[in-house]
């Protein structure tokens, strides 16, 4: 009960601040739609295009992240494991990671067109570089003592990989997944700027052309809540997989 109140409190505070700004007269009220107006829009769009937009965006994010992480796990593993390789590849990874995915959009349009593939490529890019760093830094930190212990108990190379390295990698995989999801949502709007018909980014973009601020708010709030929901799901998974850890991811 008290917990629920504590969780709700900051949200109510935001809502109150929002109303305060709306009514304060400091800003033209037309520029700050009232929360209830946004809620009404939400309900209206909920029976209209919103479900499809949510579906499309979620699908793109999940596809991009799935592909990005599928590659980031083995690559991050190799980089974390072989220090020599890391020395060479580190600057490369940092170079590409430093490029904002948005800056690549014109190039992606040239090479991949304007349909689903282009958006998947951008999200894949974002997810891969976010995930690969987390993976390899995590793996590089694994203490070699566990490998030594396993060897002295008679473990072969393949047994060491399956019974020591993999379990020690799981926490880093989950963290990589969480970070990648976060970055992917952040990149979503940019990716859907590539002439998307559907998606939350497209919703926001369309609304912006007609100066429909309330719809822009609906889009932004939807993105936030979906990201939050995904993070909660991932945390629940982490709690199950990582019961042995002191602090949960």
């Amino acid at each position, binding site marked *: 009960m008290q917990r629920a109140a504590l969780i709700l409190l900051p949200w109510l505070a935001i809502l109150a601040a929002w109303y305060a700004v709306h009514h304060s007269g400091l800003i033209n009220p037309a520029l700050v739609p009232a929360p209830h107006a946004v809620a009404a829009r939400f309900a209206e769009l909920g029976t209209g295009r919103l479900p499809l937009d949510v579906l499309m965006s979620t699908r793109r994010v999940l596809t991009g992240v799935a592909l990005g992480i599928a590659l980031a796990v083995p690559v991050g593993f190799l980089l974390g494991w072989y220090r020599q390789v890391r020395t060479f590849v580190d600057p490369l990874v940092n170079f590409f990671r430093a490029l904002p995915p948005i800056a690549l959009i014109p190039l992606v349009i040239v090479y991949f067109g304007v349909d689903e593939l282009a958006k998947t490529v951008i999200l894949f890019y974002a997810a891969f570089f976010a995930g690969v760093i987390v993976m390899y830094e995590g793996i590089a930190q694994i*203490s070699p*003592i*566990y490998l*030594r*212990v*396993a*060897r*002295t*108990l*008679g*473990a*072969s190379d393949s*047994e060491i990989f399956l*019974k*020591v390295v993999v*379990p*020690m990698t799981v926490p880093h995989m989950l963290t990589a997944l969480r970070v990648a999801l976060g970055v992917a949502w952040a990149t979503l709007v940019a990716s859907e700027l590539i002439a998307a018909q559907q998606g939350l980014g497209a919703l926001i973009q369309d609304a912006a052309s007609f100066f429909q601020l309330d719809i822009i708010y609906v889009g932004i709030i939807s993105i936030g809540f979906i990201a939050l929901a995904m993070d909660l799901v991932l945390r629940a998974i982490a709690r199950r997989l990582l*019961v*042995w*850890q*002191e602090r949960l991811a």
Partner: protein
Amino acid sequence: MTDRIVFEDVSVAFGPPERRLQVVDNVSYAIGDGEFVSVIGPSGCGKTTMLNMVAGFMKPSAGRVLLDGRPVAGPGPDRGVIFQEYGVFPWLTVRQNIEFGLKLRANRRDAARRAEISDRYMRLMGLEDFADAWPRMLSGGMRQRLALARAYAVEPQFLLMDEPFGALDAQTRSAMQNLLLEVLRTEGKTVMLITHSVEEALYLSARVVVMTARPTRIREIVEVPFGYPRAEALHEQPEFGRLRSHLRDLVMQEYAAQARQRFAVTD
């Protein structure tokens, strides 16, 4: 007595030729079957390096390290290794840690036999109430007992211990020493123990090898004239006190030599 571990003119140097660090310098000694030998010397002199060669983690630059007459080829389940940092697998429960080695191809046992073995060592090490606990819930002493149980489970003939009790408080440390003596009495092993503590070396071993500062050589090998089983009262015996003072003198001299060296290196 047959020699089981033999150091034969062993030297070790690290680093490239132009900045070569000589660590072990022509060391020869042997550890006999069922013998408990402690190696003591200033930190940084090369004790871990010597143990690592027996464990099979590295090879000497010159000379040979022999195990039952054959040069050590690599790590193996015939040699249980106990580290100061325990190395208990945090993602496995106490029981799963003990059974880890028994699920490997090298020493696979069926489930019933595994349970039997882990039950036995949990009882022996006083861990029976923690079978399903995660290592993070255990104290340092319990983790070290778990590491010992896990090593024992695959029935090694040798026990190689690198300052195993160094991180424990005095009470726990002394309890661990007695537990180790107790376990060794029922299941004898050939033991090489590296320690900082003169007291510990004397109380546990049949022989103490005192090493010099780096590059380390044998300073002196001290025979410990007490039989087994041993009990705490041994600490009060005059002969124990005499050997303790003697060993302390040797070790202090070498610590001082090693400390001077460290200054020389940083200059």
